[in-house]
């Protein structure tokens, strides 16, 4: 570079990351709520929060008594997936990680279906009432490119639908997540990436996950807008995701929303968070959690009283208990199912393996019965 061409001092690029909140930790509104957050909507959101939390507690209880496999509790983060799901249309597509039970329940998955998944039955991997939604994705972040791919399909077919993809703070360190966002940016895809930042990736805290000031700003690197929202304020999450979805449907491309929340429980039922974080750190976050927060707002606004609470708790508990019973009563999957979906049409050599497996099962059961 010749000396005359020394760069003039200028700003090549800059960005701001906005933060949105409507209701603070004590349940007080800090700004006027969006118009469509009317009483009925708020009550429906509260219902969903309580229902999700009750489902969650039941799942943990079932796991503790050996009737469910390892389970990842969403306690404390319900507002993120419920807020996002409540902003979606039924024919939008939800692509979760594995802690979005609230969002799945909002969109029509039944508690029994979710119990089946966590109870290690593949019949919990697809949902009668949400046929387009993807099942949980266990390898962290690997579903971000899927979301971009689905969004591309919608765009190619000119459909006014969009994709919501949810993953955690840990996932944002994966190459796959950047690659998904990058595709979404450069191809202007109708996908909203929601980062459910609960501050912990098993034992690794947020500040050891990335040196970035916010996770939302990773969107800037992909050329798409990024913003933060109070992840414990379900009204805020709904509003922000809703706005992003509107833009996506209008062809204005992708968006990244970082919902800031906190993982109040362990990573899974097998984990013990007290190995790596102090209980005293967790306690104050119980004051900010989403269920209590909305309850407080509704009560103060005169929308909710003791009878309502009583009835809701009774109704939700009865529903979840019944769903658990239905799950426990579901007969074990047929072993043949291990083979039947391996290919579109089972090849001859797999037919032979399947028959051999069934035969050896039969003779093993015969031997057992004879004893």
């Amino acid at each position, binding site marked *: 570079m010749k000396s005359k061409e020394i760069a003039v001092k200028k700003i090549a690029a800059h960005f701001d990351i906005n933060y949105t909140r409507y209701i603070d930790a004590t349940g007080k509104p800090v700004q006027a709520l969006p118009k469509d957050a009317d009483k009925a909507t708020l009550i429906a959101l509260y219902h969903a929060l309580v229902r999700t939390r009750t489902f969650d507690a039941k799942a943990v209880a079932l796991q503790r008594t050996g009737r469910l*496999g*390892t389970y990842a509790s969403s306690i404390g983060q319900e507002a993120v997936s419920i807020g996002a799901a409540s902003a979606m249309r039924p024919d939008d597509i939800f692509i979760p990680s594995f802690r979005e039970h609230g969002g799945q329940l909002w969109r029509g998955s039944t508690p029994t279906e979710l119990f089946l998944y*966590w*109870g*290690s*039955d*593949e019949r919990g991997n697809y949902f009668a009432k949400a046929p387009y939604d993807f099942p*949980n994705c*266990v*390898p*962290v*972040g690997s579903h971000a490119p899927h979301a971009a791919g689905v969004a591309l399909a919608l765009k190619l077919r000119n459909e006014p639908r969009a994709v919501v993809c949810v993953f955690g703070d*840990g*996932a944002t*360190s*994966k*190459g*796959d997540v950047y690659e998904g966002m990058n595709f979404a940016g450069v191809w202007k895809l109708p996908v909203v990436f929601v980062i459910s930042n609960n501050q912990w*990736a*098993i*034992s*690794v805290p947020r500040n*050891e*996950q*990335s040196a970035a000031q916010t996770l939302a700003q990773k969107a800037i690197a992909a050329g798409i807008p990024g913003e933060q929202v109070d992840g414990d304020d379900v009204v805020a999450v709904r509003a922000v995701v809703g706005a992003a979805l509107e833009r996506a449907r209008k062809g204005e491309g992708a968006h990244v929303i970082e919902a800031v929340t906190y993982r109040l429980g362990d990573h899974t039922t097998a*984990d013990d968070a007290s*190995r*790596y974080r102090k209980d005293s750190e967790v306690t104050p976050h119980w004051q900010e959690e989403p269920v209590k927060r909305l309850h407080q707002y509704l009560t103060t606004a005169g929308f909710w009283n003791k009878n309502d609470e009583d009835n809701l708790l009774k109704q939700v508990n009865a529903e979840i208990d019944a769903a658990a019973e239905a799950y426990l009563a579901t007969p*074990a*999957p047929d*072993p043949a*199912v*291990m*083979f039947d979906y*391996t290919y579109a049409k089972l090849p001859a*050599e*797999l037919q032979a*393996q*399947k028959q051999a*497996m069934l035969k*050896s*099962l039969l003779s*093993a059961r015969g*031997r057992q019965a004879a004893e």
Partner: protein
Amino acid sequence: MTETTLVQAVNLALARAMTEDKRVIILGEDVGRDGGVFRATDGLYARFGAERVRDTPMSEAGIGGISVGLAAAGFKPVAEIQFTGFIFPVIDQINNHASRFRTRTHGHLSCPMVVRAPCGGGIHAPEHHSESPEAMFTNIPGLRVIIPSSPRRAYGLLLAAIRGSDPVVFMEPTKLYRGAREEMTDDGKALPVDRCFVLREGKDVTLVAWGAMVPEVLVTAAQWETKGVSAEVIDVATLKPLDAETIINSVKKTGRCVIVHEAPLTGGFGGEIAARVAEGAFSSLLAPIERVAGYDTVMPLPKLENIYLPDAARIGSAIERAMAYA
């Protein structure tokens, strides 16, 4: 001598390696403060500090690539991948770099690194947590692939892997982390990584296995002893480079071979062993070589796990078939 589980043996080997060689660095998700999700690195963070026991961001490809760089620049990284179900992003770094640096640079650069990961089923884990991908790695030239089946062998083989100069993928059977336990001493003695281990001598049939299938095969051999069939049991342990000679010599003696592995049958490492045995012990064979393996299906969820995994009954059927060719 103290009674030690397999995961404790791994922990002891790591601690010893860290002590004797300052170049050894441990990295991985949750390996520091939490001591690893399976406690394989328990206590090492407190003992050796955050510089040498490094909690990483969630980034398997990154962990693989960083290890390549660290190793090429003179350190000895021992990376933990939390589950073999998540090792696939690392295959790029292993196949395209770690295993071929030495070849490409005629020895100027090389990658003395170890990638450890828990493998295999039998612990009622959710999807993706019970994988057995060892065959994929055995097809990568320049790589060593090791799977221990006992605390002592885990200890001795891991020490050898870390002290060695080649890249190693070291898979630890989750089922044996606590499921295998024996008396052993933290004596710093490595085991050879160029030979199979004959765990039991016999004359009627050679049983070949690795990982969590080894205890299953030993149980089956004891059962068949009482029926007058004397089985020789070989723990392959180091799959690559393979000590085919031990296996071939055994089959020359017994005339019959049954290979057992959890991974799916087709393309599984049992095929390689069967080919070598057919080549090397052809005229001694009394019966076709048998393989007992996982079905060619996705590893099922816990409710069907026990049907999928080879057990003494299925291994016994294979022995029976081989013995029928008296």
